[in-house]
């Protein structure tokens, strides 16, 4: 039976990690929904409105804002900072247990034995939870990264088409002897 500080560290650590994973997932879902909404607005002919909304969103939607601005560049998506922060925090409860256990080395009172036993049980609980939460956070971030990239590619295709159309129109206007590249 766990007791004392190890119980508190383990419970707070495990619940904190799960809560962090859920928070990251909820936040990422919100970002994905926003990106989808912005793309729908742009494809529906309200690109300016989409751009204004994108400016007020998180910096993680910056690639979408760039694509809404008509930029012809590969989307530069990266794992959000919050993901790295959560990944850095995940080992801390286990580390705290290890440091606590270090303090117990050499203790001679009987109550320390119960605490040492609790530390071992705490590590047994935190190890699989830490790995699962770390993997989940990375998976959520990667899925979100892909969603934002997908939104950017959708807008990029539209931008490229507009650019090619403009180039063709310009060539035709100048009377260059240019074959319409869209012909088959």
């Amino acid at each position, binding site marked *: 039976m766990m007791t004392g500080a190890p119980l508190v560290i383990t419970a707070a650590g495990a619940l904190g990690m799960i809560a962090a994973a859920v928070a990251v997932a909820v936040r990422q879902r919100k970002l994905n929904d926003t990106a989808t909404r912005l793309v729908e607005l742009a494809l529906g002919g309200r690109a300016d409105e989409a751009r204004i909304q994108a400016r007020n969103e998180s910096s993680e939607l910056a690639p979408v804002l760039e694509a809404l601005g008509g930029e012809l560049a590969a989307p530069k998506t990266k794992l959000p900072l919050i993901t790295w922060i959560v990944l850095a925090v995940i080992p801390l409860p286990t580390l705290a247990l290890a440091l606590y256990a270090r303090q117990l080395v050499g203790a001679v009172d009987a109550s320390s034995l119960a605490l040492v036993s*609790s530390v*071992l*049980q705490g590590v*047994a609980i935190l190890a699989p939870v830490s*790995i*699962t939460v770390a993997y*989940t956070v990375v998976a959520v971030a990667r899925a979100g990264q892909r969603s934002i990239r997908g939104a950017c590619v959708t807008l990029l295709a539209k931008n490229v088409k507009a*650019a090619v159309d403009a180039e063709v129109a310009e060539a035709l206007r100048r009377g260059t002897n240019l074959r319409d590249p869209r012909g088959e």
Partner: protein
Amino acid sequence: MSSLEGIGAFVFFLVVAAPIGIIAIAIRERMALARFVRAAADPDRLKDVALKLPLAYRAPATAFAGELARKTPLDEALTQALTRIANTHFGRPVPVRAAAALVISVLALGGFIASLTGAAQAIEAAAVAARDLAGARVFLETKAILDPAFDLVRTYVRGTQVLGISMSVNLALAWWLLRSEVREARFVKALIEASIAARPNATAPVAGRVAALLAPERSLTAPVAAFAFFVAALATSLATLWLTSGFRESNAGQSYAVWPADARAPLVSPSGMVVPSFPGGGSPVRERSLATLAVGPERVDLAGDLLVDLDARFALPASFPQGANDVSRVLSGFKRGGTFELNLLGHASTPMTTILGVLMYLKNEHGLQRVTCVLERAPAGAGARVPAGLKLELGVPEGVAAATTLVVEGSRVVLDPGAADSIAVDRTDPAWRLRLGEAVRVRTGAKQGAGAVPVIGLVLRSTELPYDRFLEILSSADSTCPTTADCGVPGLGARFVLER
């Protein structure tokens, strides 16, 4: 199937089956996409082939085949397919992947988790077993409970390291062959090849430019970052190993930093005296109110006052006790109820005849009851040599019965001679100290119970023995160390009763 066999099966799965599975999936996808490209020349067949592609590719490939069959302009069909594939999530949904990660981590760490839980239970069992014990008996009784549990933890930690390496290799392999970006690039390449095969003379400026923009980056940034991460991880691992080397060394050497660091008796050995030193036995010498009897190398002092001079061979004068100084006044301050006890510091080479001669004189003339024979130990964590004491009663006190009798004769030490279970230990045997200690622990534990202070009768049939050999026998009998190295644990705290 035992948990170790279970871990073995899982290691086999991770080391052999999982990499083969990852490579097989990648090859299967490549082959399916190659079939898709070959079928592109025949638009009627392309849709059927698209429907046989792996699930993630199926929808965009089928839509692309449909567009080609409907004679949609190639540029438009290809652009739509590229957009669709960029919005495709390869692999399982995140909740499924999280559940799989939980199952795999529990399976991979199952043995480790079970061993930690077992060790926690062993600690609780040891606490119960040690409840009525005192001193080094606690160490002896609980070591048998804790050692197997922690050996199992060590075994599973090593197994988990192998699993960790296997999982890292598999993750790297999956990252290389199956990550979304790689699959997308693979599919884009197949789509472009299929487009060329389906409409050899068509152009696709929009799709071409989009594909060029989406082409994977081929800079050295990612490999350099991966290398830096690898070096940092390696440096962290080495630093951790270096920082924890003390723990691991003490665990491997069965050495424990438990020697009490509280106030010690102010024992100062006279100049030139070599105090016997042994790697086990004896208890911390805490009593500060006792006088010190120093025997050798040139004289015998009691509480700093000369009792008698010794000759060149550490022997008492033939006329002793005649000619000895009167120490009554010195001893009066240390006596309690007519009797007293002393700390005994003896030079290593002093013969036992000299030591016993002085002790018997003090017993008969002044009522000396017992001495604490002081030896030196070098327990882990103490930082320096520390004095350890062995209690020696000069005669059998009333109401005291020895649990076992130790007879010292020549090179042999015999436990309970004449008894059916008598044991003789030859001091020429390299393991004689361990054998003697174990025999005494078993006998005193069986006869007096694990919680009692062991009482050991002592018969000296060989008084020519030097003092250090005598103390070596006593410290071996009192020792709790499982090896010949100093384990750092005090001895049993036995009372040796000099019977003859």
